[in-house]
């Protein structure tokens, strides 16, 4: 217990997110703003979902444990759906902002592409979602205590950390896929994203049967990751090229016109 568990679990839960933020987001002001605004949108969705849950709990019988459990599941489902609704709302907002940035920029191009915004918005949803899920648990892990003394699983902290990591990555991938699906109007992709989010959240209801919850969730994470990679334009060929570190001959011509270089995507 104590500092070791705290740092270990914090590292597991937020290591990938921190690396992604430091490497890709922190340097660009616009991406930081997209990150913070995405967190805001997620918070609003959570607020609404908790309001619905709170109202439903207060209208119901408090003593009935099964009913309360059912209401909690219902609240979780509502929250997932609201998160996706707000992701869509954020997509709309970013699309408008993208057009605005493009019109007022010098060369007609927005300084940030919609794909980058999709990635950053997914990351922001993931980070804030992960933080809200796990930060109080991490804070408790610093102090003294025995995990699972009343018969619960002793692996609570470490599994929470892994679940959070999976969730952060999943949100990032979902963001990329979601925005791309909205752009190209592939509504079946949208439905699939929502369904996989519901599935992931549903699998966590199987906790503490961690074999049934953690393993499938990680499989889902991997698959979604591959899907997002392909959606973002990656391919096996790209990976090989990147790994072989070969310098490709740039067959494009540099135009020495007024301060312009060819548009690179």
């Amino acid at each position, binding site marked *: 217990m104590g500092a070791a568990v705290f740092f270990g679990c914090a590292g597991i839960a937020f290591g990938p997110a921190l690396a992604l933020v430091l490497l890709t987001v922190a340097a660009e*002001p*616009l991406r*930081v*703003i997209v990150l*913070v*605004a995405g*967190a*805001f949108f997620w*918070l609003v969705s*959570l*607020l609404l*979902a*908790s*309001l619905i*849950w*709170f109202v439903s709990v207060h209208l119901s019988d408090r003593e009935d444990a099964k009913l309360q459990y059912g209401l*909690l*599941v219902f*609240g*979780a489902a509502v*929250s*997932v759906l609201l*998160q996706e609704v707000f992701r869509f709302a954020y997509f709309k907002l970013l699309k408008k902002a993208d057009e*605005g*940035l493009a019109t*007022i*920029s*010098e060369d007609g191009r927005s*300084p940030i592409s919609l794909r980058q915004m999709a990635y950053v918005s997914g990351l922001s949803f993931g980070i*804030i*979602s992960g*933080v*809200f*899920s796990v*930060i*109080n*648990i991490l*804070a408790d892990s610093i102090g003294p205590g025995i995990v699972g003394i009343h018969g619960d699983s002793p692996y*609570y902290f470490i*599994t*929470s950390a892994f*679940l*959070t990591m999976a*969730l952060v990555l999943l949100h990032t991938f979902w963001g990329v896929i979601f925005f791309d699906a909205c752009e190209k109007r592939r509504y079946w992709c949208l439905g699939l994203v929502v369904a996989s989010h519901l599935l*992931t*959240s549903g699998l*966590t*209801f199987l*906790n*503490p049967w961690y074999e049934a919850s953690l393993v499938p969730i990680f499989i889902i994470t991997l698959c979604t990751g591959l899907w997002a990679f392909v959606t973002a334009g990656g391919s096996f060929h790209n990976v090989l090229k990147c790994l072989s570190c070969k310098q490709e001959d740039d067959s494009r011509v540099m135009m020495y016109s007024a301060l312009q270089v060819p548009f690179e995507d």
Partner: protein
Amino acid sequence: MDGKHLKRKDPFCVEISDFQRTAPMTELSAHLPQFQHGQLTENFPDNHLSNTQESMSSALFNTDQNDNSERRRHDNNERRRNDNPESETNGQPQNNIQQVVEQDEEEDEELTLKYGAKHVIMLFVPVTLCMVVVVATIKSVSFYTRKDGQLIYTPFTEETETVGQRALNSILNAAIMISVIIVMTILLVVLYKYRCYKVIHGWLIISSLLLLFFFSFIYLGEVFKTYNVAMDYITVALMIWNFGVVGMICIHWKGPLRLQQAYLIMISALMALVFIKYLPEWTAWLILAVISVYDLVAVLCPKGPLRMLVETAQERNETLFPALIYSSTMIWLVNMAEEDPEAQRKTSKNSTYDKQAPANQTQNEDDEADDGGFSQEWQQQRDNRIGPIESTPESRAAVQALPSNSQTSEDPEERGVKLGLGDFIFYSVLVGKASATASGDWNTTLACFVAILIGLCLTLLLLAIFKKALPALPISITFGLVFYFATDNLVQPFMDQLAFHQFYI
């Protein structure tokens, strides 16, 4: 377009690079109505020992520094360096003029919106740092969450029998505090209007002395107590002395920009901690709510005290109080001859640099008779000090031909944004109170933090669109309060239940 890119090659920047920061009173300029101008807000008494003005200002400034056009480069006379504060006397207006001009509307709009993201980050970082310091202190040093009495400005206790009595007491406390603030602000405006600069300076110096020495001594003592560090008085005296003196120099005189920013953040954090400690709960929330309403009124209404303060400062072409404003970039002291109403009033010749008459400029650039924006009084002072020197177009051209070894970047992004220290303080009070008293603990703190950042972002966006001084408190504090109460009462039970079952959403 070229002018904009070339403006940073202004050789007068050479001299500026010798020192990082100029005397505080001359640093901030009051901008003219066409440009972004800022306003200061309330005067905030911090404890019963003295009235301090440290937590004044909760307004947002947007300064376009040196956004010159090419013709302006020819207009730049010698920059006046005001490094002897004793040259200010009561009743003498300061003649440091820093003027900014937007070129065309379209480029301007592109610039402010294009560079808006960077300014937002330039404000996110210090606001975040201040909040981190406050939250870290609240969480670790128990002194600031212990109830040790209340300020004399909030005389009614909140430990009452009934909820109604508590509500009434907190409303009375908030009313007293707000009226004290209003009275202080009006007093400040009156002092400023009647040019009692010495009184204002003395007031500012006393309050920063108090913060830098006394409050930081208490803070250091409490931190040592928390971590059980053995310390002797001599070492503490040495540390506090150094900290305080360097702070006074940085804030009121010259110093490296980062050091000055760090000190401003530290004194904002100290002030916020004092409020968090001495304001009871309901009173604190009420005060936050009422202060953001007051901020809105004072900055935007035509007869608001802060608006009057800024307009007076603009009429006199003076700077406002730099000790109370966080600035994200260095201030350039370039005297620009354009649109100086005093000069235009005094001289009867054509205004060379009249923005509305760009056609005149080329033939009038060699006009010897222009005074370059310096008033007669200033010129007399200068002549008395360094002998009669007149800057001619030839001499100006010669100086401009000097290579510039200015270390500043040359892109227009160096325009800065200013945020009043009062904003820092109240943001930190909100987040600190949230972390001290919320049952949701870290969730509530983070929600308030995100809400405040988004409010700041929106305020900056409005600033970029409207280009006038805006109150920075209302949007952020509103979001912050909404998120605090919503997260503490609605989200926290929900997340608690989910975490209990290890459900993830």
